[in-house]
């Protein structure tokens, strides 16, 4: 509404953020938050036992973490910011107003984290570190605390997006930070990171120690033990988090429909989730009890499971917060529910900034429909690409002639039957124009160009009008 609309019409804007954010969260959890304490623990084992092999293994694991986190990890972090501010500037702009000081604090911690990991890694083999091993270990512990703190801050914002709690009634920094989902999600994520990092490090350790069978067994046993130990708080955190979620969604989504909407997601996958968790526990027990019998090639399995579990968790989290991007404050389409009555009276286009059409007339129906699509659908849907709006209607009404009258009725009530969709804003005329545009799109692969190529003024080509 108030920003030119960036749009990727093939991959879709969701996928852009999802890819960047998934890479970032995998690196953050498996190579920083969860891995650094494990590495410091291995270094400590080396000091305690006097066995240099622990120290060497810890260092080799750290080098992997160092290279990946300071390049791809750091830049995908910036990438999340750049991509979300392109796709939904209203949402990220609002979040920054509320969470500015949290982000600011997170930035100082992040800066310290970068400095610390550079020192911790590059000084590992120096004479200084050999003489002052305990001081060097203290650096590692400090680094682990810093890594956890950066995550702890961001989880507050993620929790807020899912449940704003009392913030809408009492706006303020602390009412936003201490949202109902913050602590449960943090209690879940912390051991989740420790477990998944353990699984990845298990694979790497198996690879790094392949020449020394005896030490390999010891390393596998130790890291399997680490993973098992954190499984318990992981399950407890999952339980706390799961209990907090329905309270968050109760307010705006009828429970019955939630289960309806979740059915095709959770149904077949529920089994997979439990199976993968069971596999993690079994492999952990196996590795801790009889490491010699655990073939090295099998160590890839837990690492793959960890990647899948983390990605799947993020996907579910993103799904739960729908239809809002900031629960109760802003829908995923970047419009605020409080503005809906105004749009219903005047029309959405009348209040949009970058639209060549302000009022629907007979001559501009398609242009009006295109602008409606741009403003209300394009944050999540494409014309013909991923999550295509044409495909959605095709899946519902088949591929015979579509009845515009029925489609209009559907747009008016869609949010009741699809609770993860926000209501379509605007007037009946605008809904009708949007329907005409979608019907025209079906016949014409014209697509929709974002402001990044076509400019803000909505000058791109329209699909051909007319019937078959």
């Amino acid at each position, binding site marked *: *509404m*108030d*920003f*030119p*609309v*960036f749009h990727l019409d093939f991959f879709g804007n969701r996928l852009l953020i999802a890819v*960047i954010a998934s890479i970032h969260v995998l690196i953050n959890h498996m190579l920083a938050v969860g891995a650094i304490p494990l590495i410091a623990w291995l270094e400590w084992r080396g000091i305690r036992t006097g066995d240099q092999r622990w120290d060497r293994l810890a260092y080799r694991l750290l080098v992997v973490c160092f290279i990946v986190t300071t*390049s*791809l990890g*750091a*830049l*995908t972090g*910036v*990438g999340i*910011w*750049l*991509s979300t*501010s*392109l796709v939904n*500037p*209203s949402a*990220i*702009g*609002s979040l*920054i*107003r*509320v969470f*500015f*000081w949290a*982000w*600011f604090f997170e*930035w100082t911690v*992040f*800066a310290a984290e*970068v400095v610390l990991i*550079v020192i911790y890694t590059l000084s590992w083999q120096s004479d200084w570190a050999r003489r002052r091993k305990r001081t060097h270990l203290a650096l590692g512990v400090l680094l682990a605390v810093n890594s956890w703190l950066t995550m702890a801050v961001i989880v507050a914002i993620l929790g807020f997006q899912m449940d704003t709690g009392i913030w809408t009634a009492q706006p303020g*920094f602390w009412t936003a930070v201490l949202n109902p989902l913050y602590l449960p999600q943090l209690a879940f994520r912390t051991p989740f990171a420790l477990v998944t990092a353990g699984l990845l490090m298990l694979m790497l350790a198996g690879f790094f120690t392949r020449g020394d069978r005896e030490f390999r067994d010891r390393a596998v046993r130790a890291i399997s033990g680490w993973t098992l130990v954190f499984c318990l708080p992981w399950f407890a955190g999952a339980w706390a988090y799961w209990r907090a979620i329905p309270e968050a969604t109760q307010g705006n989504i009828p429970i019955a429909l939630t289960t309806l909407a979740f059915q095709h997601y959770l149904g077949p996958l529920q089994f997979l989730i439990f199976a993968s968790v069971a596999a993690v526990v079994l492999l952990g027990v196996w590795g801790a009890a009889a490491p010699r019998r655990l073939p090295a090639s099998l160590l890839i399995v837990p690492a793959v499971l960890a990647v899948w579990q983390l990605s799947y968790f993020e996907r579910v989290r993103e799904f739960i917060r729908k239809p809002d991007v900031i629960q109760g404050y802003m829908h995923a389409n970047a419009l605020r529910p*409080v*503005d809906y*009555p*105004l749009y*219903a*009276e*005047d*029309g959405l286009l*009348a*209040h949009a*900034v*970058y639209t060549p059409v*302000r009022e629907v007339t007979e001559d501009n129906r398609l242009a009006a429909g295109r602008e409606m699509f741009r403003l209300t659908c394009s944050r999540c849907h494409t014309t013909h690409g991923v999550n295509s709006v044409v495909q959605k209607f095709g899946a519902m009404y088949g591929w015979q002639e579509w009845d515009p009258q029925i489609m209009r009725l559907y747009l008016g009530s869609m949010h009741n039957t699809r609770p993860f969709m926000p209501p379509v804003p605007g*007037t009946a005329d605008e809904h009708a124009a949007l329907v005409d545009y979608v019907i025209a799109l079906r016949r014409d692969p014209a697509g929709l160009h*974002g*402001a*990044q*190529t*076509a*400019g*803000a*003024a909505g*000058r791109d080509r329209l699909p051909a009008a007319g019937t078959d």
Partner: protein
Amino acid sequence: MASIADWPLPRDIPLPLPADSILLQTLLVVLFMWHILFVNLMVGGSLLTVVFQLIGRQRPDFTVLARAIAGTVTVNKSLAVVLGVGPLLAINVLYTVYFYTANALTGGAWLAIVPLVTIAFLLTYTHKYTWDRLANARGLHIALGMAGAGLFLVIPLIFLANINLMLFPGRWLQVEGFLSALLLPNVWPRYFHFLTASVAITGLFLLFFFLRAGCPVETKLRDLDRAGLRRLFYGISLGATALQLLFGPWVLFTLPGHGMSWYLIGVITTGVVLALWAMHLMWREITAPLARAMPRAALIFVLVTLTAFAMGYGRHVYRESALQEHRALMAAHTQDAGWLAAAAAWREATGQQVLRIPMGQRVFESTCAACHAQDRVLVGPSLVEIAGIYRDDPGGIAAWTRQPGRKRTEMPPMPAFRLDNETLQAVAGYMLERVAGPAPIEGG
């Protein structure tokens, strides 16, 4: 550029700023200075590495210097990225609408920052760590350095195009993609201004870097001694700063006039005077007898730092004044939109009959009807009389409303209405329509 009334007028984020605006502005200027210092060192360092490596083919000392400079670049680039997040946060919160609009309009390039920076970093690392391994393939090694430096030359353009585009809402409707944003006035002058500054700052940094106590200059270099290094790096810094006498005025004179002020000229003149003083001292250092160590270095350092602050503060002053008027309009518009939404929500909540009233009619009734009636004089002339003057010219009504003259001295003068052009056109259209026919009433 069209008048400000024709600029796009979005609503701002309707949430309060997280802190006092002055505090946030101070944070922005100070944090940005730290960020740009390391960006300068990263860009200038990677350029000088390549240039020195090329010179090194004839004069081996320069290859030694190039290798040492390459070592500083990888550290400075990490600091440049880490220190960039703070000012990015500050500019996001202070100029949300302006910055994000510029980002969206150059979206492809804006996103490309992530892979481009990643590749540039990897190239710089490869270049740094293959110095010995590629000893027999010098051409390839220099090419790696050039590719990295080349990317470092491109990436700042993306940031510059954004930071420039955000200042000119009047251009937002014309821009189509990053390349067209590059064609706006002031992008290229600022780019060259930035590049020369990078070389100047890096020259000074390397002077301190190589002449620091304990730097093994005597053992590593054959022909160059400390005096020679001093001349070399002061020379680079002085030459680049001298170029700014060309680029500086070019930047200033291509700046669109709507943000100019004498205060800004004062700030920039201060910076120029400090820079001239620093240049004079550098010249004295270059030509001074070589026996003494660097007597004026500390003062030169302070002067250059103050110059950078004056210029950094100057650009902030320009940004604030260039956007001042549009921001005031936007603040008023945001507040109005909030009231309109609240009123509509109240009507919906109380189940009142909702009539769809066209915008022109609504604004007319809430803003104009207290003074202008259909066919009699209230405070101002009647609509019939107005329609007689502007029969087919709603734009004339809009222009008058923005900047009214005074025809009737017996009545109070009409105040200027700072409504955006679209609203004014709608109101004017409604006024003429209402005289031409019966007032349209639509059921909704």
